[in-house]
């Protein structure tokens, strides 16, 4: 029982991080109809920028303070992500308006390749660390209830809390602010939004910047956990089933989907894995999402697609 709960917690905490990445997908899809395959590359790019700036800035400016260095690096990395968002809008999206979803998806595949190359050329391809002072050792809780107590990774817990806070923040931003309303208007109907004076281009820059922000935070959390290097871009592949399960257009879907996938894959790996020889979590998440799609093609909270002719 204790172990089951540990697995459950582990899954929930991993799921929260998937939600964070999935949120980046959903935001961009809602606002620009682009299924952004480059989200993973953005995570890597942002994390590389963060890690390297935190290393370089103290050297350039000649001081030695971890907190200041991290703050400055965060600002610099965020600025870079905004520039990136602008460049993507200017050079790519604005030229692909009204193209089909598949074309846009393939364009983001191109962007993702480009970013992988650019990030490593600019920042190097070694393994770098992000030190934001996350506690690494685990905590034991409820020791009087379970034999040996329940193991809880403090780092995962904090990461999950940050992710949850950010997800809540973004959801609020989307629902309550004027920009958020404009974003939703764009999501509903590009042309209508344009006709009432919402500047599409600016909205896209904003939404890609916000996705860049989500990527940066995800990059910092994952980077602090795993170290920053090439494989970080693969975490996006784990978020894909989340988006599919939750529905491409739904913020709550991304959150709930993340938790379901997180818990589902951990439980499956531990309780079903041994019967299959292990290593099943990656495809299990996909097959779970796929099976779900067959029942509900638009995902958990997605809007039903009606073909109009």
């Amino acid at each position, binding site marked *: 029982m204790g172990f089951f709960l540990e*697995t459950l917690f582990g899954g929930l905490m*991993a799921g929260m991080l998937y939600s964070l990445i999935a949120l980046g997908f959903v935001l961009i899809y809602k606002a620009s109809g682009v299924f952004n395959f480059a989200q993973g590359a953005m995570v890597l790019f942002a994390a590389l920028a963060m890690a390297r700036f935190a290393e370089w800035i103290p050297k350039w400016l000649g001081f030695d303070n971890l907190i200041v260095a991290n703050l400055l690096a965060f600002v610099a990395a965020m600025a870079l992500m905004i520039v990136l968002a602008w460049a993507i809008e200017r050079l790519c999206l604005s030229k692909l308006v009204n193209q089909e979803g598949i074309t846009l998806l393939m364009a983001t595949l191109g962007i993702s390749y480009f970013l992988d190359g650019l990030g490593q050329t600019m920042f190097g391809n070694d*393994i770098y660390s992000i030190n934001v002072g996350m506690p690494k050792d685990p905590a034991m809780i409820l020791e009087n209830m379970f034999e040996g107590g329940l193991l809880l990774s403090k780092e995962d817990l904090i990461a999950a809390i940050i992710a949850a806070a950010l997800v809540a923040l973004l959801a609020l931003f989307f629902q309550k602010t004027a920009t958020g309303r404009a974003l939703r208007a764009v999501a509903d109907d590009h042309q209508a939004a344009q006709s009432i004076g919402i500047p599409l281009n600016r909205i896209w820059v904003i939404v890609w910047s916000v996705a860049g922000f989500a990527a940066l935070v995800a990059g910092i959390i994952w980077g602090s956990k795993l*170290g920053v290097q090439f494989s970080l871009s693969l975490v996006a592949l784990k978020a894909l089933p989340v988006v599919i399960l939750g529905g491409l257009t739904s913020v709550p879907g991304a959150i709930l989907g993340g938790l379901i996938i997180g818990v589902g894959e*951990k439980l499956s790996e531990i309780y079903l894995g041994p019967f299959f020889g292990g*290593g099943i979590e990656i495809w299990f998440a996909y097959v779970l999402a796929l099976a779900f799609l067959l029942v509900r093609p638009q995902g958990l909270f997605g809007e039903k697609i009606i073909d109009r002719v």
Partner: protein
Amino acid sequence: MKLRPFALAMALATVGAATLSMPAAAQQANEQFFPLLVYRTGAYAPNGTPWANGKQDYVKYINATGGINGVKIAYEECETGYATDKGVECYERLKGKKATLIDPQATGITFALTDKAPVDKIPLITLGYGLAASQDGGVFKWNFPLMGSYWTAADALIQHLGKKEGGLDKLKGKKIALVYHDSPFGKEPIPLLQKRAQMHGFELVLLPVTAPGVEQKATWLQVRQQRPDYTLLWGWGVMNSTALKEAVATGYPREKLFGVWWSGAEPDVKDVGANAKGYSALALNPHGTDSPLVKDILKKVHDAGQGSGPREEVGSVLYMRGLLIQMFAVEAVRTAQAKFGQGKVMTGEQVRWGLENLNIDEKRIGELGLAGLIRPLKTSCTDHMGSTSVRIHSWDGSQWKMQPDWYEADKSVIDPMVKEAADRYAAEKQIKRRDASDCNA
């Protein structure tokens, strides 16, 4: 207007055709050519880079000190990205330039090249990796897994655990987990561990990690559930540091965690720092900058502005492994020259003979500037490994600390397995085992 990209494409195609059809860039007639297959990009770049730099630095060092009896070494790097098909492309490209020896630097590429090498007559040096069965020179005429294979590594680890417990028989009833990279590299040790488990009565728990290994939460939850007495780590690249971090996060004692020699370098622990304290791994090669060889390289290569990588990297574990691989390559050429002609460029076949007749004794080790740091190595027609000596080093939170004891793989365990696997391979490939006359040739 629309024609312009087309014209551009045509121009590119013309240049391309010219480049591709051109004969391989001619190199000096009196140079020994070593292709250097490396990976400095992708998921395994942090580990591949120091390795590649070590290989290159040693070549530069030999050239700076007058070559091999006056024969300079030409080299060319080719990026494989750890991908088998890229590796094959590199091999095909560089072999055309009269390649005489190749270190594929990846298990998958080694498997693909093992079939091609005998045809092209290019020996493969796979120091500490590759196919365990290729130790058997009777079947694998062109493969040289010098210093050890995954079987000797696993054997040494089990011996070490036995020693800690006070005897191999004390392993009875114990539980040993293997957390491994889900690839041929990670799977190779399993047959040996299963055999040892049978011999000593310990329980073996297999926990695969999907490559590249950034997601291990479930694996380490299983470790926590199973509570193995020891856990062996068979990882590469980012999998290692992630494993250590997850071990920390799930509170698995690092003192009970033992890595293979591909899981015991600086990039694996650097990022975990003090939290990895107590973790041990096999040390196939020495590290540090104290040896005369490394000091000399720093002086003659790095101080001359010729260093392949940053100076701080020199002496790191994987850098030293690259250095050692290239050193054996050079020694093979030297050995071959002794037989086929001093100061001549050796062919692939001659280098192969050199590899098969290596005899690096204590005296030679001293001359190479590594006195006391490596064990003698002597290869033969039947034994392409030469030595199975290995030590253990432990991470003290900031650096690797070498432990004094040397381990040798137990021949009585390994040899029958090698023979059986080699015979199976020979049967599959319809290869005839070499006879004595072939050995003396």
